Every structure is written in structure tokens, then in C-alpha cells.
């Protein structure tokens, strides 16, 4: 098989491979990523094919032949017509009006402020810890009962959006943009310290700092609704239920 054809087929193959999850499972690989993946895969393939002069010449020879051989003038002209048309098609597809919404982007975990004020006192988020967390080892029974209370609080307040399985698919979730965060999986709350979760619960969307953008959050500020202890209990619950451990910085 000729090298140029190989290159072409290889890129096509990678493209199809990247499209498969979307076609088969309904979980499309984002087009922005496909573009990047394809670009670099193509670059590296070309690099590999040009490490020696011989193989580089082989790769480019059909292109050079097409451009230089007098006998192939018809092919050349056809290509010269097709290429701009192809570019025009891509441009058209990119700019034509469609019903697709605006591309949204936000950071899911914006940077917290250093200190917050709530419940009439000041919390230093750098050192704040869940006061109930230490019970896990010292008084496991009391800890269990707090987790259970946290569960009750969760189902009275948080469940509507964050869902019965804590997967961010509550009854109201579909109406919100962005969707409520899931607590399942190892890449959500387990990435965060409890102090961070405390801040997000207590201050909600309105408390997000301007500098930490871009953010959007429909999370209410719960400080007027839940008291401090209830917030800590519900935090215990969401970690416990999903089997996650809060992040700690001490090595």
C-alpha cells in the first residue's frame, strides 16, 4: 500500500474510532477533543513517515508528481477545483445558522475565598475541618447516627436536585443549567476538602467569587436554612453514601 494512502486511511480510522462512542453508546466524544486528537495523531504519523529521506520521498512523491508532471494536468486542475469547494463546504457548515445553543463553559470547582463569614463567625477555609469527622474513629456509633441525620437532611433539602442516588439527577435537575453536580465517582467531592464543600453549601451560587470565574451555579445559599451542624452532618452523609473520602493536604 502506498504511504500516502496509508496516512489517509489511518487518519480516517482514528476519526471513525473517535466517533464510535457517540454512535454506539450515545456518549459522544466532544468534537473539540476529536479535532485536537486527530490533529496530533496526524502530525505524529507524518513525523514517523518522514524520519528517513527515502520514506519521506515516498510519502510526498505522489503530491509532487501531481503538481509537476505535465501529463497530469487534468487531474491537477480537478483537484484545484475540488479543494476550494471543499474548504467552502467546511466554512459553510461552520457558519450556517442552526438551533444549537451557545457553547457553554464553566469551571465546576472555582477557587474558594481564603475566609468566609457565616453564622456570625469567620471561617478560615485553609484550616477549617469538619468537627464531626473525628468521631468516625473515636465514637463510631455517634458518627453513624450523625450520618443518618445527615441523610434525613439531605432528603429534605438536597435530594430534589442532587437526586436520590446522589448522582445529580434529581427531579428538578433537568430544568437547571448547569446540571447539579453528582457526588458519585472518584472525581467529584473526593477531589475537595470538606471545608470547600462547606463553603459551597453555605454560600451557594451567590457566594461564588468574581475572580474565580467562569462559573454558573444554581445552588442556593443554605446558611439561612440549615444551621452549621446540619451542614456538617449532610457533608458527612454525602461522603459516606458515595464511599468517598474528603481530600486532605497533609501528606
Amino acid at each position: 500500500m502506498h504511504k500516502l494512502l496509508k496516512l489517509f486511511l489511518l487518519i480516517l480510522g482514528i476519526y471513525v474510532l473517535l466517533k464510535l462512542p457517540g454512535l454506539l453508546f450515545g456518549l459522544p466524544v466532544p468534537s473539540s477533543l476529536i479535532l485536537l486528537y486527530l490533529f496530533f495523531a496526524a502530525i505524529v504519523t507524518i513525523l514517523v513517515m518522514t524520519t528517513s529521506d527515502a520514506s519521506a520521498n515516498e510519502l510526498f512523491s505522489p503530491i509532487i508528481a501531481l503538481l509537476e508532471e505535465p501529463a497530469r494536468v487534468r487531474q491537477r486542475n480537478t483537484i484545484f477545483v475540488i479543494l476550494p469547494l471543499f474548504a467552502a463546504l467546511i466554512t459553510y457548515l461552520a457558519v450556517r445558522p442552526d438551533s444549537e445553543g451557545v457553547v457553554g463553559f464553566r469551571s465546576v470547582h472555582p477557587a474558594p475565598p481564603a475566609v468566609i463569614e457565616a453564622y456570625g463567625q469567620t471561617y478560615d477555609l485553609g484550616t477549617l475541618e469538619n468537627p464531626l469527622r473525628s468521631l468516625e474513629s473515636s465514637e463510631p456509633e455517634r458518627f453513624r447516627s450523625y450520618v443518618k441525620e445527615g441523610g434525613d437532611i439531605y432528603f429534605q433539602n438536597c435530594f430534589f436536585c442532587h437526586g436520590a442516588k446522589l448522582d445529580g439527577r434529581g427531579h428538578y435537575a433537568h430544568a437547571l443549567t448547569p446540571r447539579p453536580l453528582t457526588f458519585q465517582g472518584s472525581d467529584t467531592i473526593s477531589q475537595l476538602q470538606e471545608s470547600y464543600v462547606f463553603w459551597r453549601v453555605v454560600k451557594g451560587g451567590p457566594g461564588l467569587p468574581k475572580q474565580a470565574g467562569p462559573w454558573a451555579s444554581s445552588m442556593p445559599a443554605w446558611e439561612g436554612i440549615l444551621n452549621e451542624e446540619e451542614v456538617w452532618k449532610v457533608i458527612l452523609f454525602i461522603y459516606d453514601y458515595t464511599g468517598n473520602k474528603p481530600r486532605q493536604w497533609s501528606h
Partner: protein
Amino acid sequence: MNNFIKIIGFGVLLILSYTLFSVYYVPDINTHKSSKRQRVVLPIEEVGPVAYGEEVYYGRGGCAQCHDSAGDRAPELSLIAAISASRYGASQYTGTATDAVGYLRESMVEPSVYVVEGYGTLLGKKIVSPMPDVSSGSISLNEVELAAVIAYLQAISGLEVTVKMPGAGPKAEEKNGARSKVSKEAEE
């Protein structure tokens, strides 16, 4: 010379492609461009309570984020001072205000005393307001700012501004001096 140009061309092309990647592929995130209203906060002595209140309303107070003309997140407030008697006179009102100024102030620091129909959230068996207490937490308006917002709300309702500005002394001056440098808009 030919090679020199080739190398320069290659280098510039490279820099160009990095720039294009950063400019067009990476989402354009501008953290400093907030509401234009937030731009200048002039001292209250210079602009008067109404204009100052407007700055707070659109700026630091963050009121306009929900209380906009669409009214889908929070009640629309353009006539609030004029209709406030119907609020504190209502049967479901649980607060203590007896006049418009008192009611407006109360609904900013204790929003749940009267929840406009369709805007409340159910908490247990009580209907409460989702609005935060603007005198504390992340918004933390002080007395001067609260009064200025009331003045602004009275003015847009077409009424006489009757709210008294508290502490019109050196202390207030200081505060506003400090405030005036807090937020500034900057452009590229």
C-alpha cells in the same frame, strides 16, 4: 539567506499556531468583565443617596442579578415602594414594619417576612424566600448602603425619598472612601 528565511518563517509560524490555539481553541474566559454598572462607585456625598443606591443595586449588592425586568427569578421592583403598603398590610405578613421604608429595609435583611406569591421555596411546612440577607454573608451591605438602596427604590417608584441616611459623619465618609476603590472596571 534562503535557510535563514525558512527558519524565521518556521519560528513565526510556530508562534502563530500557538497563539491561534490559545485564542481560538481555548474558551475565552474573561473574569474581569462584569456588569458595566459595577464600574465606578463614587462617594455618596458626591452623587447623593439615589445614585449611590443605584450603584449598589446594580453593583455590589447584586440585586439586579435576580430582580430584573423579566421577573422570573425574583419580583420586579420598579414600583415596590409605592405598593409596599399592600405587603406589610397583608395577612401573611409576619414582620413588624409599619411604613414603606421599614418594610423595604426589613425585606432586605429578613426577606422571608413576606414572600411574594410564586417566588417562595418550601422549607418544611413554611414558605420562605430564597433571597439572602444582604446585610451579611458575601454581600454584607452596611447601613449606609441599605439606606441608599431604599432611596433608590423610592425614587424609581416615583415617590419622594424619605429614608434617613444614617451616620452622616466622618465615619460614613471613611467607609465610602474605602468602598470607592473596591471595584473598578478595567478594559483591555
